[in-house]
């Protein structure tokens, strides 16, 4: 394994790789016996990947796209790409073939063909949110590990079903919360967790507003797009160009709006720093003004998480009795008050290894696939974070305080709110 670029372009130092490789080398005898690769006749020790969804985040338009990040990693091999849009599918396949210097990447519009394909050990799911649960559960049943983009789910029940599938089928399922393997973010959260800013009085997390129903008029479907497959488990409706490829986020049938878009990052940091990765808030109080911002989420320990707006501030701000930490997901930008709290923050490249030894979110996933350990961004963590987002959307919708039981994962004594914990999925796309 040579030193090169990690996901996102950050150079991976030889020392980091040495740390990873030594551990991996120790695990290598396990690989040579054919585990965890599927089948005793696996052609190489590389992990075979299938990409489901090679549009915006998957490949097409996003800095640090998943396909471009994974394909640089020596320990895996991209064997298949899948997208319901032929334009993206063809471009992604061409990119893979060109990168490897030979034709051979399988491409299809139907993800079921990826799940049934020999040699594929894991799938990377970067489709719109409404597909995440079905694809993840079906992939687990098919014996594949899963990297699933955030937000993990469209509903609370879907998230729980994904956790169940990962556990029952003994699969590694990692969510695309890249902050979880960012050393700067981890440093900031550790400061909060270890009480360096005193008792946390308030956390403010920025994200956009809730989604709205999709009532757009019908348009002609492009020839390149299998619209019925794009819809999948979502209710049937005609195509509109404002839905595909990336503005689906605005609509509740496919996503959780701005709440899940950046909330999946920023609420995640709040959960992490509070030690709530297996729990959640107990009370939600939407603003009486009806504004789609300002929701207050209270945790059992008394801390309040406030939904803030990008117009006011950026990132997540932890306000403690002895200091303040502000963190911005993805970029890893961190600010501290008093400033000396940031003295231990180093550029990961200079430091050589971050605090917990993970060398990038994607490498971490592959390491977990090899060693079968639980990911630092495990599906349960992703589910709990997505749940916070879904609860927020439900609270905004119903415009009244809601009590939540994070153990039972139901609203307390609220039949109406509980009816929003799941949604109907169009057959045959069922969990």
């Amino acid at each position, binding site marked *: 394994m040579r030193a090169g670029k990690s996901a996102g372009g950050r150079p991976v130092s030889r020392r980091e790789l040495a740390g990873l490789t030594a551990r991996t080398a120790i695990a290598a005898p396990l690989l040579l016996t054919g585990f965890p690769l599927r089948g005793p006749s696996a052609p190489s020790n590389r992990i075979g990947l299938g990409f489901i969804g090679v549009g915006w985040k998957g490949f097409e338009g996003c800095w640090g796209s998943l396909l471009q990040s994974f394909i640089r990693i020596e320990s895996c091999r991209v064997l298949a790409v899948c997208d319901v849009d032929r334009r993206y599918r063809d471009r992604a396949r061409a990119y893979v073939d060109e990168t490897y210097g030979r034709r051979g990447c399988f491409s299809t519009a139907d993800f079921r063909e990826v799940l049934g394909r020999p040699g594929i050990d894991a799938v990377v799911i970067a489709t719109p949110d409404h597909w995440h649960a079905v694809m993840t559960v079906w992939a687990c049943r098919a014996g594949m590990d899963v990297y699933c983009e955030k937000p993990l789910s469209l509903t609370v029940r879907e998230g729980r079903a994904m956790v169940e599938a990962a556990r029952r089928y003994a699969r590694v399922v990692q969510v695309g919360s890249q902050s979880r393997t960012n050393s700067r973010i981890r440093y900031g959260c550790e400061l909060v967790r270890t009480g360096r800013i005193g008792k946390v009085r308030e956390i403010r997390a920025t994200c956009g*507003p809730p989604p709205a129903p999709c009532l757009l008029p019908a348009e002609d479907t492009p020839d390149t797009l299998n619209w019925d497959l794009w819809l999948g488990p979502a209710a049937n409706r005609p195509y509109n160009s*404002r839905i595909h490829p990336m503005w689906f986020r605005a609509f509740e049938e496919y996503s959780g709006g701005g709440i899940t878009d*950046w909330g999946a990052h920023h609420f995640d940091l709040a959960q992490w720093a509070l030690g709530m990765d297996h729990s959640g808030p107990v009370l939600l109080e939407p603003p009486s003004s009806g504004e789609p911002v300002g929701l207050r989420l209270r945790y059992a320990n008394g801390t309040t998480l406030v939904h803030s707006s990008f117009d006011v501030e950026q990132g997540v701000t932890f306000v403690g009795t002895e200091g303040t930490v502000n963190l911005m997901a993805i970029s890893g930008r961190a600010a501290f008050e008093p400033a000396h709290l940031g003295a231990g923050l180093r550029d990961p490249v200079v430091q050589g290894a971050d605090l917990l030894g993970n060398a990038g979110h994607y490498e971490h996933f592959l390491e977990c696939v090899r060693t079968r350990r639980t990911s630092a961004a495990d599906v349960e963590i992703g589910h709990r974070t997505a749940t916070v987002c879904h609860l927020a959307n439900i609270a905004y919708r119903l*415009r009244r305080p809601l009590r939540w039981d994070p153990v039972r994962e139901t609203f307390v004594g609220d039949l109406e709110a509980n*009816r929003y914990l799941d949604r109907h999925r169009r*057959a045959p796309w069922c969990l």
Partner: protein
Amino acid sequence: MVPLRVRSLLAWAGLILLARPGWTMPAGQDLASAMEALRRYEWGGDPRCLHEAEAAARTRPSVAEPLLVKAIREAATEAGAQRAARLLAVYGTDRAVPDLERMLLDPQRGAVALMALDGIPGSASTAALRRALRRVPDPLADGIAASLGARRDAAAVPALAALLRMNRPAARGALVAIATPAALNALDRYERAAPAAGRERAAADCVAAAARVGDRALAIRTLRRFAAPRYAARVRAAAFRALVEKDAEGRVARVRSALTGKDDALRLEAVRAVEEAPSESDPSAYLADWPTLAATTRTLLLEALGRRGDRRVLPLVRRSASSGPAGTRAAAIDALGQIGEARDVPMLARTAADGPAEIAQAARTALRALRGVDIERAILAQTEARRAAVRLQSLEALRDRAAVAAAPRAARRVADPYADVRRAALRLLGSLGSASEAPALLVRLRGTTDEDEREAIGDALNQITARWARQMEPVVLAAWEEATAPARPVLLHALSLVGGPRALEAVRSAVRDPSPEVASAAIRALADWPDASAAADLLRIVRTATDRVHRALAFRGYVQMCRDESISELDRLAMLRTAWGLANGAPERRQVLGALGLVAHPEALQMALMCADDPETRVEAEMAVVGIAERLPAESAPSFATALERIAAGASDQGLAARARAAATRLSGSTGAGR
């Protein structure tokens, strides 16, 4: 950052949400009309009927519900039927179930009726779905099967088993979810009869169901079967995992057996089981075979124990950290970083100092990761260790831990006999020190002859001064009085951070110092002065300096002061006029124009315009013109609109052109005026 267009769209979507019916009482149309409009609703149509219908469903459910059922049954459009079904899914009751059940058999309405029924909880809807399962066509049957599975409907197992025999994946998923003994038996029969291609999946489903089934004996029996070597690795792994959960009595023995066995799949699951064992159980019980475990297994276990965070295994971890293969030792040291105590610090510090590369790195990481109130005290003690390398590693760790309390000890280490330790101490003080530690720095500054060390001391001093300017003022001034020539350049920067008349006086006198190094540093200090009190000094240097570098520094510093918006605009304008007169060449004129752009005065605009025709300064002049025009009150300079239009027309930078056009419009007082 979410692109602006997407943010706008999301904001728009949010506004739509605000208009939702739950937020205001419905007005206008009566409910019947709204339902009629809903029945005929088409995508992109007027959404008011949807709001009315939802408001009615929430506030008058007994009235709205039959109307919604009717809207589905008689819907003229699929959109209308769907919207009605979505409301019933949230607000429907048992009263709607009979009609919806009948609609399940309607090819036109079946899917929509299922959408509604799926959301209605309770035994009535469950029974309706169960009855319909064998009567509806295939795609719908899958949806019903999934719904029955989610409801854990044990009574549906026979019908689901029949679907399973027809190889319906939805039936498999439902039976796994229901997970009664009957469901498990159906899955088991299916697996035994499954063709080779599908047997692994069928086996995995059996394991998943067995993991959920309430009959513990049946579960254990089934899981044991699938943990056998003849099944695929992932099936064995899942079965093992479930067995560990189900069979508490046999857990320890099972895990121990897997850890010592040859089955890699089970071995990895066993490691995981150790990590995730209930917190009340002592993991040591699983590790009784430690001496006979393979090195790879030990390494994986140590990593898992670290993640588990259980201090009961500390003796084992400590032993592993001190001897054995490198990978195992490193894993043990990593684990110490998670669960270690203060007494582990000396070993970690020693290992960080001179262990083999991977192990030393693990030790450094562990020193930074250790938690506990006494940890920093323990690391502090290591700053007095006999070995320099240990002192060095300790200081670095304290700095990375942001241990402010370490600053006084670091101040002592500034006089350490070893250069590396001194540097580490200086770095720590730079990050964490305060005015209290400055005297130690100054003593060292006086005593050192090492140029690099002097620079490092200067860095630390400057960082402290930047944080604690007020407290550092007397310290720095006193040091200046006693400073020898080599130390003076270092202190001059600190003086510029301190500011104030006394510091300025000191710097002023240093400009005339016979040492060129001191004089240069003094001019740099003046150029970095925090306010305009040094302006006159800089001007004098510009006018009189014979050294080109000094002059250039002073000029730049002077112009930089003109950017200080606490100085009145007229004063800044006067300063910039002076600077303009002294500017030597285009680069310096460009500097002046850069500062001029911040002065909101018509004369400044005039000055900038005069430079717009000079190709060497045109770009900066235009930027200054636009910047000034944006700051001017509209009524103060309408005559400049034409000039701005000209800039807009000729600018290659589209952003600047747009700004110029906007400024022109504003100054001319109306849209299109002056064009």
